[in-house]
């Protein structure tokens, strides 16, 4: 049998998340068990958390908190919506949500790509540390709070206080931004940024359909990088 076609089925109405995760964690590099189909997730928490192998996990339905938490290498495809903290602290790999994502999507993630077809709630990309997050819908308030590195691309609108206390992450928003948080400012879109955005469009499967020029870029004014009495009101 071809390595890439070996698939496993996991029904979470008859087996547990623990059984699923321990099977996923047991995968060794070069394992040919590369496709995992998970059914009946019913909003259960920590589905496919801590995976450290280049496998594909397809989840048929909505997941609870922390799906794909701390993911390394895996592709996790969710045919439904995701609860709080999806792909939190992801290091690498790809997490794709067909529905909406709840709060703190991609929180503190260091790498990989998080693609959300629907909307993301508050605090999307909070404290992000290198991940690329793409949201085809809109994002809630306080998104990219203290975002350190990586990109957050939003095709819809952003809620209040976008990028509050942001460090070096780059934010691209096509729609409206209700308000910018402390130390977050609009920045010039140069060619390098348009090129970066174009890469995100490819990931989202919309390259050629949207003009990067429709987006605005936001980032840090870097005024809060050093404690200074005149900035006291901003902290």
């Amino acid at each position, binding site marked *: 049998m071809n390595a890439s076609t070996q698939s496993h089925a996991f029904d979470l109405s008859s087996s547990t998340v623990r059984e699923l995760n321990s099977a996923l964690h047991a995968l060794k590099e070069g394992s040919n068990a590369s496709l995992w189909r998970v059914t009946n997730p019913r909003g259960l*928490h920590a589905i496919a*958390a*801590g995976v450290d192998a280049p496998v594909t996990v397809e989840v048929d339905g909505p997941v609870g908190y922390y799906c794909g938490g701390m993911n390394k290498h895996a592709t996790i495809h969710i045919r439904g919506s995701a609860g709080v903290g999806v792909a939190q*602290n992801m290091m690498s790999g790809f997490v794709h949500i067909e529905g909406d994502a709840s709060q703190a999507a991609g929180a*503190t993630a260091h790498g990989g790509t998080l693609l959300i077809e629907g909307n993301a709630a508050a*605090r999307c990309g909070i404290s992000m540390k290198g991940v690329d997050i793409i949201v085809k819908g809109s994002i809630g308030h306080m998104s990219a709070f203290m975002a*350190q590195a990586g990109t957050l691309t939003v095709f819809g609108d952003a809620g209040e206080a976008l990028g509050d206390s942001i460090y070096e992450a780059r934010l691209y928003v096509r729609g409206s931004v209700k308000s910018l948080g402390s130390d977050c400012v609009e920045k010039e879109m140069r060619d390098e940024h348009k090129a970066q955005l174009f890469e995100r469009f490819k990931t989202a499967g919309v390259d050629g359909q949207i003009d990067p020029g429709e987006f605005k870029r936001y980032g840090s004014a870097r005024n809060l990088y050093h404690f200074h009495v005149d900035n*006291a009101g901003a902290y």
Partner: protein
Amino acid sequence: MNEHVKNPNAAPRTLPRESATFDQHTLAEIRRAAATGIYDIRGAGAKRKLPHFDDLLMLGASISRYPLEGYREKCGTDVVLGTRFAKKPIELKIPITIAGMSFGSLSGPAKEALGRGASQMGTSTTTGDGGMTQEERGHSKTLVYQYLPSRYGMNPDDIRKADAIEVVVGQGAKPGGGGMLLGQKISPRVAKMRTLPEGIDQRSACRHPDWTGPDDLEIKIEELREITDWEKPIYVKVGASRPYYDTALAVKAGADVVVVDGMQGGTAATQEVFIEHVGIPTLACIRNAVKALQDLGMHRKVQLIVSGGIRNGADVAKALALGADAVAIGTAALVALGDNDPQWEDEYQKLGTHAGAYDDWHEGLDPAGITTQNAELMKRVDPVKAGRRLANYLSVMTLEAQTIARACGKSHVHNLEPEDLVALTIEAAAMAQVPLAGTNWIPGQTGSF
């Protein structure tokens, strides 16, 4: 010399009198604030006098209880942490652990020395805000990995390398506060580990980014257990403010171990106003945390670690007698490594302070090379020698605690109990919930004077 003594015929007059309210320290702070416009930031814990373990005394054995023979009869000191859910609980030879202190706040050699000293004595060290270093993992036999709001350097590989995970909700020095690490200490290595630009004044969040409240914490703990295949003990650390409820909620959320850190607990850098005015003393939180465990039928099943101002074996014995399973030390461990040592007096003077009072740990200029990222200064810490000093100190503390336990007739330090204690002051009696010495009075509870 006043006028009247110089000249006995002068009319008597009032002596200059300083205000107890507006004392010299207060006046200096007002002037400093007026000049700079910014609050004072410093390291270490609360410096004011607080009810503490010195206000408690142990009752040695007498006719009704007999003591154990000092050098012959065994007095156990081992402790097992994480017996509730973890497949691999932690076994320590002594009930004194090293508290979490970040790489960044401490130098690499200081972290290595902590690992060496603790490992020699069969106890654990703890990472801190800023991730796990090779210095510490390499030299610490048992290493607790902190899971903090900032998640600096957090990654699944290090989580798997750790022996336990400590979810940090708060610290005694600043319950409700986040971290800070000033630019002087954000060296290229520290910046890289934290994914931050070099040299900036780093703020770290006070709340976890992806959970708030006890119900979410329960799910977060479940996730951490899933990621680590239910192997590793999970601690929850809180700064002492509402220890009864925090302990109960941590247990409900599924913690294996609860760490309660009192207001004397050290910090690497926090606003002075926070250190001195937020939170409650260590003495005031132990009984309430133990009560929460007892009410839930979890005392000794979920272990309790207490920290904040632990200095010697007497403090250890008293904390255990009040119901803790172990203690953690931060400041005292740094002193054992050489912090505030008189041998650097000249350099402390140049910094405008003196050995014993130096607390500007955030500035990165530590003459002892411990709270710094300066490559020259940190060479002053010889990790092997400093580690040996820490091991000696831990050994003395353990012997002292055993001395007291044997005198109270206990064959294990965990057999110490509140009945072995009395208080010297009414405040301590009320907080520790033991009688005032010579009475049967526990203020707010029993009897009368």
